[in-house]
């Protein structure tokens, strides 16, 4: 074999090593509340188990849109859309009391909607004036926020489902 060819193959092997190392050492985090780990890179394949939000793992490869990992001693796959390089963000709520509302007309300081409306330093009337005249309904928004679903309700709803 010619020297040039040997050099070329050595370069290629080095390239493979670098790229493989760069990918295989990537540490990733599961994002949804719970994600299923599949035996093959397909949602139709066997489910090996599930992992919770924030689960950290080191990927050992990628096939199309699936991330490969070692799960309970076996190769498993997680959908790429359900993982990220950073841990999941914490639950967010409406902007807090730091941005004190400056409502002069319709003061409802305890309401989260009031905070939203007031945080720009404008009254409801101001807001109506600068918008295209389209009305905003913050009472309705409060009603929407008030509807809560308990985890028990959700669980029993899901158990009752699963039918054609």
């Amino acid at each position, binding site marked *: 074999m010619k020297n040039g*060819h040997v050099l*070329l193959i050595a370069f290629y092997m080095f390239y493979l090593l670098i790229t493989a190392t760069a990918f295989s050492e990537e540490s990733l985090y599961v994002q949804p509340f719970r994600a299923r780990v599949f035996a093959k890179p397909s949602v139709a394949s066997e489910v090996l188990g599930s992992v919770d939000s924030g689960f950290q793992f080191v990927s050992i490869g990628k096939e199309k849109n699936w991330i490969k990992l070692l799960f309970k001693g076996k190769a498993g796959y997680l959908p790429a*859309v359900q993982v990220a390089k950073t841990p999941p*963000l914490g639950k967010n709520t409406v*902007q807090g009391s730091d941005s004190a509302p400056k409502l002069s007309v319709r003061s409802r300081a305890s309401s989260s909607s009031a905070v939203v409306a007031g945080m720009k330093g404008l009254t409801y009337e101001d807001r109506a004036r*600068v918008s295209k005249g389209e009305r905003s309904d913050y009472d309705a928004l409060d009603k929407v926020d008030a509807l809560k*679903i308990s985890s028990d309700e959700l669980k029993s709803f899901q158990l009752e*489902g699963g039918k054609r």
Partner: protein
Amino acid sequence: MKSLSLLFMIALLFAFQPSVLPAAESKAEDWRSRASVVDRDTYSESDTDEELNFGREIAARLLGQFKISSNEKLQKYVNLVGKTLTQNCSRPELDFHFVVIESSEINAYSTPGGYVFVTTAVLTKMENEAELAGVLAHEIAHVTDRHIVKELSLKGAEKSAVSSIAALIGGASESVGIAFSQTVDKAVDLILRDGYKKEDEMQADASAVMLCAFSGYDPSGLVTFLDKIGKIKSGVGKTYPVYDVRLATLQRAMSDEGIVEMKLALNSERFTRIMKIEGKAKPN
């Protein structure tokens, strides 16, 4: 000759290299490379705060135009379906809210931060829970992928996409407040009148069927629903791209993911029962 054989070898070596790198990310047309959550790295918790507050303003504006359905059981049902989906979505930091609004418009809307609206008219066109899940999942995808924030080019000079929202919210002067309100106007226009980009709609479709499959809903629900609505609307309005193109793209995405043949839950009986007893979802 020598250099030719060397070139041939180089080409051969690189052509047969194993796919250790994310191949999908190299394809610009791959929907999932657009939907990737990798760009989350550029977002912080305070960004999400601003996104949520921006979304609430838009939601309040929408609620100023549409009346909430007074049927609490129907509201709860739609929220249960929606929450089943959001348990599997890529942004657990968002607290999604699902709202049935009274309107004769066959449509669904969503705002940044997680407010999803479905009209009473759109519910009357559905036949099962999987179709409802498909529509909600499509809207959830618009939220998780921040389509409005990106479409409005709300990009700060040096920071993340939502940093300029933060600047608008944080600003105390009236002019900043006016700018914020005008940005909300633009977002409302985009949601109600102009519609999303074709690419965003298709990406949301593809993400939606996967989210349905992850959540146990038959991914065909969105397909059957779009097919039905495409025939009803027959290309009227600008909110959606042409339906046959959209459907073809969606079916290709489903085929790529191997979910075309999946037979998951439709929950037809439960849906029919809710709509019959609780729904009274008659358009105005």
